[in-house]
């Protein structure tokens, strides 16, 4: 099967003052459609950098990133922004919701970039809210929601445009165990029942257990892949 995501000989270097630091070294990675991949590794191993390349938030210094066969690093800034809005949903560790907007307005944000009518946007938001089980909290602002509920809103925002790919950066890093498992269960549900391809960065081996495959990064390179039961 053609991989949905292909990272080819990716090198990423950052300038830190006069110094150039190489964070990823000649990295190759394929992610199949419908896969739930956990990216693990110690701090500074390049997990988030790799996730940023796959999500189109950053470009490799050398090498290529292909998503659904399209080399995204060739896209201009504007094209890349459009591509992200259509194909990728993002979930962050600290939820990153707009504090002044209600849950439903937060979820609606990516839809503002589409040509959908107000009624269509409302319907999509209602479906996403229902899926994450927060219909009764739709009018609440982030400060009126618990951490788990905020992360559910963030997941609803990530899936409301029905993207090809979900990229999650430590989505349970700020949650207690029980809430974390709820969120991971929700991601697993999206992966299994809706066929969403998910790439999740995590430190937590328990979280990685929810993934169908785990990849370890160490010092900017892939380590051997131990098998994980889904």
């Amino acid at each position, binding site marked *: 099967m053609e991989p949905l995501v292909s990272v080819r000989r990716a090198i990423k270097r950052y300038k830190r003052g006069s110094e150039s630091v190489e964070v990823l070294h000649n990295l190759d990675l394929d992610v199949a459609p419908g896969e739930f991949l956990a990216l693990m590794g110690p701090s500074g191993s390049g997990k*988030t950098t790799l996730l*940023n390349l796959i*999500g189109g*938030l*950053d470009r490799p210094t050398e090498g290529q990133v292909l998503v659904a066969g399209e080399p995204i690093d060739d896209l201009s*800034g*504007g094209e890349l*922004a*459009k591509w*992200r*809005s*259509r194909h990728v949903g*993002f979930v*962050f560790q600290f939820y*990153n919701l*707009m*504090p*002044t*907007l209600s849950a439903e*307005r937060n979820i609606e*944000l*990516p839809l*503002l*970039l589409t040509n959908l009518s*107000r009624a269509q*946007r409302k319907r999509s938001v209602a479906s996403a809210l229902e899926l994450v089980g927060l219909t009764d909290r739709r009018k609440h602002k982030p400060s009126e929601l618990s951490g788990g509920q905020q992360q559910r809103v963030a997941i609803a*925002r990530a899936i409301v445009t029905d993207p090809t790919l979900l990229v999650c950066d430590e989505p349970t890093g700020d949650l207690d165990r029980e809430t974390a498992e709820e969120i991971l269960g929700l991601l697993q549900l999206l992966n299994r029942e809706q066929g969403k391809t998910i790439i999740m960065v995590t430190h937590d081996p328990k979280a990685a257990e929810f993934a169908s495959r785990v990849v370890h990064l160490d010092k900017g390179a892939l380590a051997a892949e131990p098998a994980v039961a889904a």
Partner: protein
Amino acid sequence: MKFLPLIWAGLWRRPGRTMLTLVSIASAFVIFGVLQGFTSGLDRLVANAQADVLVTASRVGPLDLMPLADLAVLKRTPGVRAVARIVFFGGPFRQPGAFLPAQAIDPDEARALDDQLRIAPAQWQALKATRSGALVPADAAKLYGFKVGDRIPLTPQFYANKNGGKAFPVDVVGIYPSNPDDNVFGGVVLLNYDYIDQSRVSGPGTVNDYLVRIDDPLKSGTLALAIDRQFANSPHETKTYSLRQLALASVARLGDVGLAVRLIAGAVFFALLFSVGSVMIQAGRERIVELAVLKTLGFGDAALAALTIAEAVLLCLAAAIAGLLISTALYPVVMKTIHFNVKAGPALPAGLIVAVLLALVTATIPAWRAARLSIVDALAGR
């Protein structure tokens, strides 16, 4: 429109700061509104002053009386379309300090001369038919509670009645709509010249001014000279000028008001530029992560810059409108305080343009920063 909730929410991220910024911008626009209202009021005064109506008065001064015989000379002057006599008959009314403007005229002459008067033919007829009749402008009628049929005692400043008293009783035969833009007869009580002339002790057969309507306003200068030449070396030499020249001279006596107003408004907005600008920059800095998230979701550089600018425009426009509305309410009080009676001209269009410019200038840096924002650095807190 679909972005409005997002823009609105961004604006109220810190309600206290937004309110203070709104108040400071609105305060500046209160000052701007009053000053702009005053200068545009003066401009309108000049613009509305008719260039095709000349005033022929005595060279000695406006209170020096001229013989009624001059009327025929003026009517015969080539280029003159109509002539109307005027006797100033205004004076204190009911209480000291209150002034009721009134003029004695010939109804047919006044009607032919002032095409801006909103007096119905029946009202003119009523004035002609009632020797002691008076046509009262609506604002004076409202102020003093006059109605048709009332007899009111006028007490002109310069005349006494032959009956031995100071008062001249007149009968209200009509109330006509006031027209503040008509600076010929637009806001005065109109009386029959014959009645006044025959009742007054001094000055019978004389007038204060003649109003002269000419065919071509472009020839007002040469015609004014031609009129004055006819009365040169006579016992009553004249000085003729157009109403527009009179308005310009009145405004010029105040000095360069426009420059003064621009300097004051400029200083206010210069200060405002820095205070609002720093608030906008600070607000942008606090929202770096939020802007990065929007960028992550697919908002492009231009869209983020536009959102930032739209927030500033919304804030400045809302504050400007509030400030200008307050200035409209405050304007009459200010005019009363400084003893000026200039009707406010339009301040809203200029105010809105200034508000948008203020928003564009103050939002330039935050908008540029939002557009240039690196998602990765912003999300990593760098």
